[in-house]
């Protein structure tokens, strides 16, 4: 597969590899994908009291595009608020890495990982408020 230099860089030098303690109060953990599909991404964020993501870590089982997409995402979410992070679209990831068409689904999974991590954080920290948010969205 002919990958872009940026993608190869993320593969050779992945950013923010690692794990946070999922039990820690400021940490949100999103795990998306399935081994049967060949892609599993774990994205963790540490959110401060101002609601800003101050740190992120990832672990990915998947092809070069999947690894690069999740590595990129950890860079992009840092310094953003949760709502700003939720605005990250897979198309932006795909464009930045110049993903081949057959690999676009890796960027979609990375976008899902962000949503899953944010949802987990919100459910942990303000369960009542989170439930209210969900209710508001669904009415």
């Amino acid at each position: 597969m002919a990958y872009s230099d940026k993608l190869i860089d993320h593969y050779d030098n992945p950013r923010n590899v690692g794990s946070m303690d999922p039990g820690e109060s400021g940490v949100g953990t999103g795990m998306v994908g399935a081994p049967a599909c060949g892609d599993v991404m774990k994205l963790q964020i540490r959110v401060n009291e101002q609601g800003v993501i101050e740190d992120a870590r990832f672990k990915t089982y998947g092809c070069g595009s999947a690894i690069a997409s999740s590595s990129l995402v950890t860079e992009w979410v840092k310094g953003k608020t949760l709502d700003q992070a939720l605005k990250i679209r897979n198309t932006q990831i795909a464009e930045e890495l110049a993903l081949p068409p057959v690999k676009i689904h890796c960027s979609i999974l990375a976008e899902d990982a962000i949503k899953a991590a944010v949802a987990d954080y919100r459910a942990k920290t303000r369960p009542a408020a989170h439930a209210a948010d969900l209710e508001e969205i669904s009415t």
Partner: protein
Amino acid sequence: MADGPIYLDFAATTPVDPRVAARMIPFLAETYGNPASRSHSFGWAAEQAVEAARGQVAELVGADAREIVWTSGATESNNLAIKGAAQFHRGRAKHLVTVRTEHKSVLDTMRELERAGFEITVLDVGSDGLLDAGAFEAALRPSTVLASVMLVNNEIGVIQDVERLGALCRERGVLFHVDAAQATGKIQIDLQAWPVDLMSLSAHKTYGPKGIGALYVRRKPRVRIEAQIHGGGHERAMRSGTLPVHQIVGMGEAYRIAGLEMKSDNERIRALSERLWAGLSRIDEVYLNGDATRRVPHNLNVSFNFVEGESLMMGLDGIAVSSGSACTSSSLEPSYVLRALGRSDELAHSSIRFSVGRFTTREQIDRATAHVTRAVGKLRALSPLWDMHRDGVDLSTVQWSAH
């Protein structure tokens, strides 16, 4: 070549042996006649070369030269054998049998005949990749025209017992076709002794050029097939088209060398392959795909658990191998051969096929082993599945949010 790329994908194709290339070249611009030109010396010289090569191919497989039909390769041979036999017997019989792990050129041909009204049975294999003779026998019916089973599997290298399967076919009047593309030069083939009616042969897996192959068509008892390519009646009307003399000479020479050097090649390759496996199996959670003993030593298909195949191949920059991972195929489906072994999707996604050949060196094996070990380590450090495994989590019990 100490730092150059390492080729460990001999099952995909082989380089043309320099001796073969040298033998071919005069037939491009010196002895360039059309072997069908019966009226002048240019044609006679070309025809002589073609017939000599035909004998060389026949000799490697224990056949008579008259039983060898030139084709453009094993894919065409598979098409010709299966369609040719099915169409010839169209009136009396409508059923065909094959195996789930066959090459696409057999499976797709079978699918095509199914569309044309034939009934196809695709047999499963065991977790070792081998076909059960009892299951095969049970699948044969009075209406079965032909059964097709490959001798050596291209992905996992396992060897099917074609002698036994052929005997079962013979008893029931079923034609037996064997795709031997991966077998020539690796194991002894004896078509005089084996009850095989049709056999597909390739050149480019045996250090010959790409674009040339042959189909063995038994004469005693005579096997009849319908041509798929018409126009001139070449090859006893079984396959029309001007013969590519330089290609044929190449295949002949490649097969001649294979006959002479098979034993010594195999000894060397077995030692290299064992060395590679010894190195790779030192890595934790590594699995060999396919039976360990009924396989050609040239092939090592290995799954590296918790690491995905395409990302591993990226990390093996400079080493040419193949993967059974979905991500390396344009269909995004993991290897159907590995799935047929009952391998979980994860292990199919985590597989790499290493295939060793005539020109592989010990130094290449050692460098490859070091590279693989390093790459697997790096990717496991990135892998959430590896973490979960080390934490003692049983991944089969996890609820994944598949997309």
